[in-house]
């Protein structure tokens, strides 16, 4: 167990590291200046790419070898995709997918 001062220093160290990653792009490319074309391009293509990364990141601990072989995750994601293509309602797709997933892991 750390002392109170040490714990506060640790919190500040974690916060400082995090804020460097959040602020650096905005400090490197201030809004008063036009950013390089490459950066504007990356700003356009990174959102879909990062959304793909986040989806896969959430599934990183899913094992294909061990039961349930990622089946609940796959079925839930398929359900979300179908619901979303059909109704295009964000909350319905998310809620429906989560219910499918919870039913699968609790009942199976």
């Amino acid at each position: 167990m750390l002392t109170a001062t040490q714990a506060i220093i640790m919190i500040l160290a974690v916060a400082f590291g995090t804020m460097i990653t959040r602020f650096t792009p905005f400090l490197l490319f201030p809004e008063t200046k036009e950013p390089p074309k490459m950066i504007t391009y990356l700003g356009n293509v990174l959102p879909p790419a990062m959304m793909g990364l986040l989806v896969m990141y959430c599934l990183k601990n899913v094992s294909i070898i061990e039961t349930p072989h990622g089946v609940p995750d796959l079925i839930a994601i398929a359900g979300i995709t179908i619901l979303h293509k059909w109704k295009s309602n964000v909350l319905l797709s998310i809620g429906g997918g989560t219910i499918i997933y919870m039913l699968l892991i609790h009942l199976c």
Partner: protein
Amino acid sequence: MASKTRKKEFSRAFRAAFPHTIPVLTGFLVLGMAYGILMQTKGYGALWAMLMSAIAFCGSMQFVAITLLTVAFNPLQAFLLSIMVNARHLFYGISMLDKYKGLGKVRVFLIYTLCDETFSIASSVAPPEDINRKYFFFFISLLDYLYWQAGTLLGSLLGSFITFDTTGLDFVLTALFVVLFLEQMKKKENYAAGVIGILGTLLSRVLFGADNLVIPAMIIILVILIAGRKQLDRTIESKEEQVC
């Protein structure tokens, strides 16, 4: 009079922003509570959990930091680890340079609280035309931030009383990312980048394992996006030409 219209604009922006954050409300309450409970079991009560959530506000890194708080005091390690775990935020910033342009002082708060979930929503959703853009983004960020604080507080205070099984409820955040991914895919020019994001991360997961996948995945994605710029950028430009 002026303050009255401002108030009206404020509440209209709130009503436009709130529905987008409901999945985050669910996910952050569950995960924030898990965080509060874990901190409690390691001897850090509500005050400490709240301090970390309020000042650092960095989800997964807060869970990593629980371990760091129970071993030898090493702030430099915590600092460096926090940069590595959170490196993906660098790409969020690059993506939001344009959207967060010209928003005045509130911009500092938006950048400070730019977590995965807020980025996903703010980058995928455009504020309705009749809604003040600044207030809209402000409420998305503020609400997500407050949900995390509320979850942390509830977890540290009530953790031991909670008996119902919430296993699997945190899937709501996976579902959020899946839906926002699908929203991005509605634009044809986003197809290639989305597939690159999925396959690049999958490759990184296979090569580097579940615990070290983010930074290699970011590098793989970045290299492919830069190498493929001619193809990917052209689709965007030719779209604009068609419009003209």
